[in-house]
């Protein structure tokens, strides 16, 4: 069974977000990496890019297919996980830790309220299995 990490918020498109004070780290769920299979390229926005909640901000290419990434929150990208350029497999191996995607300076913390809790997300992927 794919891991659903606690203390995170999720989107229906299988991204997670870990908010701290005014920033949030964004990644994809364990379920998502399992579904994608071997990730070989990750296209991410450059630092300074504005992202909008539920709009695409990048693409993940696995051997099988390309998948859009949807931002769980709106804000400005302040950091990009540079390790993914040479080691895209981190997304498969460690989706909640080393395989994080971007850090975003939050525009509006209230956006977090509309995201799924771990329990809700667990129910969602349970219904997809």
């Amino acid at each position, binding site marked *: 069974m794919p891991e659903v990490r606690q203390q995170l918020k999720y989107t229906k498109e299988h991204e997670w977000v870990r908010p701290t004070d005014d920033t949030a780290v964004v990644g994809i769920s364990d379920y998502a990496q399992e579904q994608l299979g*071997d990730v*070989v*390229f990750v*296209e991410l926005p450059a630092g300074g890019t504005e992202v909008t909640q539920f709009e695409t901000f990048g*693409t993940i*290419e696995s*051997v099988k*297919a*390309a998948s859009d990434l949807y931002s769980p929150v709106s804000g400005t990208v302040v950091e990009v996980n540079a390790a993914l350029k040479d080691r895209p497999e981190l997304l*498969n191996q460690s989706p909640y830790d080393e395989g994080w995607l971007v850090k975003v300076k939050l525009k509006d913390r209230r956006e977090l309220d509309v995201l799924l809790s771990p329990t809700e997300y667990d129910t969602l992927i349970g219904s997809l299995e």
Partner: protein
Amino acid sequence: MEPEKTPLYKMHLGAGARIVEFGGWLMPVQYTSILAEHRAVREAVGLFDLCHMGEIEVTGPQATDFVQRVATNDASRLAVDQAQYSLLCDENGGVVDDVLVYRRPEGYLFVVNAANTTKDFAWLLRHRLPACSVEDISRQTGMLGLQGPLAEATLQPLTDVALATMPYYHCRQGNIAGVGGNTSRALISRTGYTGEDGFELFCGWNDVVALWRTLVAVAAPPALCGLGARDTLRLEAAMPLYGHELDEHTNPFEARLGWVVKLEKPEFVGREALAAIRHAGPRRLLVGLEIVDRGIARNGFPVLSNGQVVGAVTSGTFSPTLQKSIALAYVPTEMAQIGAEFSVDVRGRPLSARVVPLPFYKRKK
């Protein structure tokens, strides 16, 4: 139509496979990871369920005449227990299917693409000669692939067929000793769709589970491999996939398969059209592309030169062996030289691509 299941379906589920529909069949796309399965075949040995493939048997006094009429390669050159790659082409020279033709003591065996089995069978029946019988034995015939440099070492202890002396594209009927003293009769063929040494094994539909169990019970068992790895392996080896590089609107010369069209042999379906195409020269050619930028050029993506769409990608992937993004594409013949530069439109992003020699990967002999 409800997709079909091979006899190994439950074993795939038990092995944790992810299942996809392919050619009307529910087949494993991967068990663990496409990259890991791919590597196992390049470096060791992998086992594939190929029961979805179609098998059509041709027998009778006019069997050779018939095969010569319907397939473009010269079947008269085949010795018994020898196989050849061949094409079925229609009257316009379009490819109906790409097939393997085996000469057997009792006649010929066509191994055809799963999705084309029904179409091929109907097509063959339409061209049938009076003194030959054409039979679709796909549902009586199980098929496995055992592919990789260690395939011979894996299979030899189990069989009475001397594999070391079996050349590429030859086959032998033999026994494969099974677990618990069971023995499977199988046709062992030194063929494959991976670019590696290896075998394809044909047995009775109901015997294939026992044969699979035998092969996974050896001391160093082969990696279970799904269609995902089969696709990346064949693409590195630049082997065409019907529906991608080949279809009824594609002729063999543009697909660089002119070597299997023997225009000098007696009359066959499509010969006139194929002779005209060869004489005029194909207007487009299949080329190998290395994608220089990061990204994957997939089936259908436009290929551009100086901002104009000049062709399209037929297959593309990340090559696990070369660690590069590769693709096959059709481009105008005059632009098809090695080193020619194009861009591929990947979801609105133009990625630089360069024509490289085919195959992308060739094993060391």
